[in-house]
């Protein structure tokens, strides 16, 4: 059985591609054969974040139009042999994707014994975003603790529950999870940022994990290494926790509370 995960948000710049790369790597490192697909035709970036941009020969649109086989287009990750990347096309029109084409690729991946397929959605609610979520079993809704992002996530939840394959065919609904990214407990404490509880109140979503605002995310993308490979970093550990939780391990939430430094201990805030 293949499980299809969509990483979505509505709003751009909240961390979808960072999350897709980290989650796909994390699941694959646990021994599951995994593919991660970039649906952002025209603005592909997953290849850069995964560090395979110089190995892209064929892309998803080539596969859909029969210009290459799926095997030719899939790029095997250099860090983890259970992980494969299917890049988006950089030159084609964003309408080059079709529902039948995407459906066929997912079926072929299932036939090749892929256990997980991570679909990295583009921002917005147009065709690429629609096709990224259409076949999903699970949705990771990536949200920043910020008004525009929370609103767009709510909009996306509405679309997941009405426009997906599962909704159209009256199947069990997509399982929706909240991933709160770029979180800063310090700013939450002084009332400058929505808290985890605030966002959960509004979206009523199951929290899969909190990713703290972290310098390591930029460092990781600079070097084309999914941040989860940086095991010492807080963001890397947060993604590792999320992968473990998703796969059924019981991991207490971290990174929601402030790390108390010497200053905090001295003044004992709270």
């Amino acid at each position: 059985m293949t499980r299809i995960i969509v990483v979505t948000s509505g709003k751009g710049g909240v961390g979808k591609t960072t999350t897709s790369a980290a989650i796909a790597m994390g699941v694959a490192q646990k021994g599951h054969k995994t593919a991660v697909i970039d649906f952002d035709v025209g603005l592909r970036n997953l290849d850069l974040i995964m560090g395979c941009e110089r190995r892209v020969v064929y892309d998803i649109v080539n596969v859909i139009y029969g210009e290459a086989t799926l095997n030719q287009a899939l790029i095997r990750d250099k860090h983890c042999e259970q992980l494969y990347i299917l890049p988006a096309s950089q030159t084609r029109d964003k309408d080059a994707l079709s529902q039948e084409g995407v459906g066929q690729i997912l079926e072929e991946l299932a036939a090749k014994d892929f256990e997980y397929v991570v679909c990295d959605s583009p921002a917005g609610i147009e065709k690429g975003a629609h096709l990224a979520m259409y076949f999903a079993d699970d949705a990771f809704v990536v949200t920043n603790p910020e008004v525009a992002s929370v609103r767009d996530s709510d909009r996306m939840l509405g679309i997941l529950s009405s426009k997906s394959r599962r909704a159209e065919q009256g199947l069990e609904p997509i399982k929706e999870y909240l991933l709160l990214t770029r979180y800063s407990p310090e700013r939450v404490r002084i009332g400058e940022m929505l808290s985890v509880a605030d966002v959960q109140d509004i979206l009523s979503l199951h929290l899969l994990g909190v990713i703290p605002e972290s310098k390591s995310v930029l460092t990781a993308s600079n070097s084309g290494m999914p941040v989860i490979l940086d095991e010492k970093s807080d963001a890397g550990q947060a993604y590792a926790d999320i992968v473990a939780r998703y796969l059924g391990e019981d991991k207490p939430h971290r990174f929601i509370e402030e790390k108390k430094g010497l200053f905090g201990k001295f003044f004992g805030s709270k």
Partner: protein
Amino acid sequence: MSLLDYFKITKASSASVAKERLQILVAHERSFKNQPSYLPQLQKELLDVIKKYVNVEQNAITVRLEQDEHQETLEVNIVLPEKSR
């Protein structure tokens, strides 16, 4: 109570303002989420018909579709002006 708490400003934090604004907005948008796309046009045409007979205001009519597990209800609410009686 820490030393720092004495310097805290007592007015509503920007985060609580954000939460309140979002709760109102999200509740409003969810109420429109499942409505069919013909509702605005239906509302406009109903208003045109009513205006032939009664001098109602532009915002005197509301059309809402409510759904529960068993039925869908189309609710049309027209507020007639006082003097028309």
